[in-house]
C-alpha cells in the first residue's frame, strides 16, 4: 500500500497524537462524562487507521502489526472475564461484583472496578476495529505476492 502526499503526511503527524489522546481521555473519564470504552476505543482505532492510510506501509510491517493487535485483543477480553470472575471469590458470590471501594461520586478515582472495565473494553474494541481494517489490506497484498 502506497502512502499519500507530503501535505497529508505532515497533517497526520500533527493530528494523530491529539486524536489518540482524545480517545484515551474519553475512555479514562468514561464513568464521569459521556462516552466510555466503546466510543473511546473506536476513536483510538481511528488514529491508527489515519496513520496507516497516510503513510502506507510495506507488507512485512503490517503483518507484524496484525499479529500484535490480535494478541492485544485476546488478552484484553481475557482480563475482562478474569475481573468479572474475581467478584465470585470476594464477598458476596456474584458475577460482575463491584469489589473495590466506591469513593466519592464525581472524582476521577471512584466507582470501584467500572473504570478498569472501561479501559480493557477500550483496548479490545480499538484492536478489533484495527484488525478488520488491516485484514482488508494485508490479504489483498498477500494474493499479489
Amino acid at each position, binding site marked *: 500500500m502506497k502512502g499519500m502526499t507530503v501535505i497529508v503526511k505532515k497533517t497526520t503527524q500533527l493530528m494523530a497524537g491529539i486524536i489518540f489522546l482524545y480517545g484515551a481521555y*474519553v475512555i479514562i473519564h*468514561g*464513568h*464521569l*462524562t*459521556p*462516552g*466510555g470504552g*466503546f*466510543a473511546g476505543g*473506536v*476513536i483510538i*482505532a*481511528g488514529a491508527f*487507521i489515519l496513520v496507516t*492510510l497516510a503513510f502506507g506501509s510495506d507488507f512485512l510491517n503490517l503483518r507484524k502489526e496484525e499479529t500484535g493487535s*490480535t494478541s492485544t*485483543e*485476546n488478552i484484553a*477480553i481475557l482480563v*475482562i*472475564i478474569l475481573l*468479572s470472575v474475581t467478584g465470585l471469590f470476594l464477598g458476596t458470590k456474584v*458475577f*460482575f461484583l*463491584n469489589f473495590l471501594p*466506591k*469513593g466519592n*461520586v*464525581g472524582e476521577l478515582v*471512584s*466507582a*470501584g472496578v*467500572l473504570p478498569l*472495565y*472501561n479501559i480493557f*473494553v477500550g483496548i*479490545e*474494541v480499538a484492536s*478489533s*476495529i484495527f*484488525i*478488520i*481494517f488491516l*485484514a*482488508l*489490506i494485508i*490479504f*489483498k497484498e*498477500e*494474493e499479489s505476492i
Partner: protein
Amino acid sequence: MELAITIITGFMILGAVYAIHARDLLSAVIACGIVGYGLVICFLLLKAPDLAIVQIVVETITLIIMVAVVLDSSREEAYTKLDSQGYIHALLSLIILIAFFYFFYISISDLDLLGKGSLRMAKAYIEGAAGKTGSANLVTGVVFDFRGYDTLGEATVLVTAVLGVIAILRLKGKK
C-alpha cells in the same frame, strides 16, 4: 424539536432510497452515510450524547471500510432481469410491508408520548444508579454494573466477528 427530527428523518429516507437505486456503488456507500450522520443529529436533539459519540465515530470508520471494500471489488452493480421467482418475491415483500404498516398503525395509539416513558424499571435505574454504583455517568453505571452480562456478550460478539473476518478474508493458508 419534533419538526426538526421529522425533516432530518425525511432526508435520511431520501438518502436510503438513493442508495438502493444508485448505479455507482461508491455513491451508494456515501449516500448510506447520510443515514448515519442524520441519526447522529437526531441523537443529539434527543439528548443522548453517549450514543451520538459512538454513532459518529463508528459511522466514519464503517464508511472507510466500505469504501475500501468497494475499491477492492467492482464499482458497478450487477443487474438481473425479473423472472417469475422475482415477481413472487416482490409480491411477498409488498404483503409483509402492508401487514407491518397496519400493525404499527393500530399500536401507535397505545405508545407513550415522545420523551415521557412510563416504564417501572427505568425509574429505578435513574434514581438508584449513582448511589449503588458510584458512577457519575448513568450510562456507564447501567452498562457495566446492572447489565454486565450484556456488555460481556457484546465484547464476545466483537471478538467472534473479528475471528470470522480473518478466517473468511484469508485467501492463502498459513504455512
